[in-house]
């Protein structure tokens, strides 16, 4: 059921990508996302696809598992595609009633689809291979310079890690409450929109109550251990770069360079073939 949403979930296994420093993965993900927005040609996307494929392979996370997480966004993707197909002005190819599909629309829609799905897969590689704790540690460390201008970096990171930590807990809780209500004959699937929305009340009320209860308990537990924010805190496992992390940075630079010269590279490959 809800467990099928793999977005933001960690997949436990041992791979090169899993072992990388979270900072590298964060930088790589940001670089990859930026590259997707800068790229605008088939050749560049081919490079991006290749890069992504290699990363998926290296991460040892089954592709099936990654795609399962995509299901949640299919709806969003479909809307984007439909809007772009019909609402882009340009040379019409095909017309239904007063709506027409244009050449530019098709181009834009296909690029957007690729862009969005790459973006999602790219960022899910990061979350699938990095535990929430590592992720926030990495973020905190990368944002450290912002402390100079009084940004509460540690607090933001703490909030993020708590939020991330709570996602699976709340999912599990949702699953449990859903089952408990289904055991009392509740039906979350059939009926029209209003009926469906109404059927969520028996799920949402207990869920929200339990979320508050958990938040309360957590606050209490933190206070009991004298938590008081980031100043002068030391880490049990400080982040430090290893050789492979520098190699990974080199790979990112290489990828971006390949993207910049994509047209030439693709032509070369075609010529060689």
């Amino acid at each position, binding site marked *: 059921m809800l467990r099928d949403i793999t977005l933001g979930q960690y997949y436990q296994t041992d791979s090169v990508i899993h072992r990388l420093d979270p900072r590298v993965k964060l930088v790589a993900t940001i670089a990859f996302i930026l590259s997707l927005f800068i790229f605008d040609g088939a050749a560049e996307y081919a490079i991006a696809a290749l890069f992504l494929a290699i990363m998926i392979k290296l991460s040892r996370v089954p592709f099936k*598992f990654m795609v399962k997480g995509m299901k949640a966004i299919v709806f969003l993707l479909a809307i984007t595609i439909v809007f772009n197909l019909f609402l882009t002005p340009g040379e019409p190819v095909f017309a239904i009633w007063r709506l027409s599909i244009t050449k530019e629309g098709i181009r834009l829609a296909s690029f957007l689809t690729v862009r969005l799905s790459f973006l999602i897969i790219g960022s899910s590689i990061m979350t699938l291979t990095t535990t929430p704790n590592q992720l926030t540690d990495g973020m905190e460390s990368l944002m450290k310079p912002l402390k100079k201008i009084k940004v509460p970096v540690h607090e933001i990171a703490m909030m993020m890690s708590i939020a991330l930590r709570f996602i699976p807990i709340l999912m599990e809780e949702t699953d*449990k409450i859903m089952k408990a209500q289904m055991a009392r*004959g509740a039906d979350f699937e059939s009926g029209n929109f209003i009926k469906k929305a109404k059927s969520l009340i*028996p799920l949402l009320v207990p869920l929200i109550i339990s979320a508050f209860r958990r938040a309360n308990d957590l606050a209490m537990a933190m206070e009991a251990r004298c938590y008081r924010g980031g100043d002068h805190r030391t880490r049990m496992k400080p982040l430090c770069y290893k050789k492979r992390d520098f190699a990974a940075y080199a790979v990112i630079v290489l990828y971006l360079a390949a993207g910049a010269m994509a047209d030439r590279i693709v032509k070369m490959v075609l010529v060689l073939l």
Partner: protein
Amino acid sequence: MSIILDKVSHIYEAGTTMSVTALDNVSLVIPDGQFIGLIGHTGSGKSTLVQHLNGLLKATSGSIYFNGEDIDAEDFDKKRLRSKVGLVFQYPEYQLFEADVFSDVCFGPKNLGLTPKEVELRAYEALKLAGIEDEYFYQSPFDLSGGQKRRVAIAGVLAMKPDVLILDEPTAGLDPMGRDEILEQISKLKKETGITVMLVSHSMDDVAKYVDRIIVMNRGGVMLDDEPAKIFKQYERLEEVGLAAPQVTYIMKALHDRGYDVRLDINTIDEAKKEIMSYFSRLAAAKRRR
């Protein structure tokens, strides 16, 4: 009316590195009217098993028959199954959501599509069966004590009038008094209605007094399935899997080992009391004869 499990297995997260075999080839027959204790240590698959009995989880392999019908068949009415096999979850108080106790208990029967009158009648009966006093009917369920909340949640399932009632650790997190009250209530309910009851627990002391059959689970499989007395005789095997016979069984054994001639097949405090008293009168009688 019976439930039959035929070689049921369940694997969570099948096909990933996190896959867990929670049930492994479980075959069971649950006939009508029994009072069954399902015992096993933490993680042995008890909760997984009971969620199969009302179709909340689907078996990875194997089949389950309810009154001879395969519950995984296309045309099988799962909703009817859930009204016939009532399942009270672990910590059921977290499923309460209505503004008052009475409406919360009405939720189940309402989902069955009964008339409002019938719904209210059933809710009333269920609350009475679960031992909730009238004065609490229109209070917010969130203002009740833990034990009372749990009774309300049990009433919520009873209001569906199930033929089989399954309670997943109904005593978890309650103090000894709350525990005894709940168990007494369940036993009374069983006597009054005659339905099949399955009590999930990891404490033999909890179930010894009430049930007439015990199923012991270990690592997703059924290890023992017999009458309580026969199960407790094998307390060494129980200990191997992190369980124990009721405390009185050990006391009686210790007495016996020290030369007191008492019976060993004793599992409840009441029985033990009677046996010890009768031992003393036997002793006195023997002395008089001498």
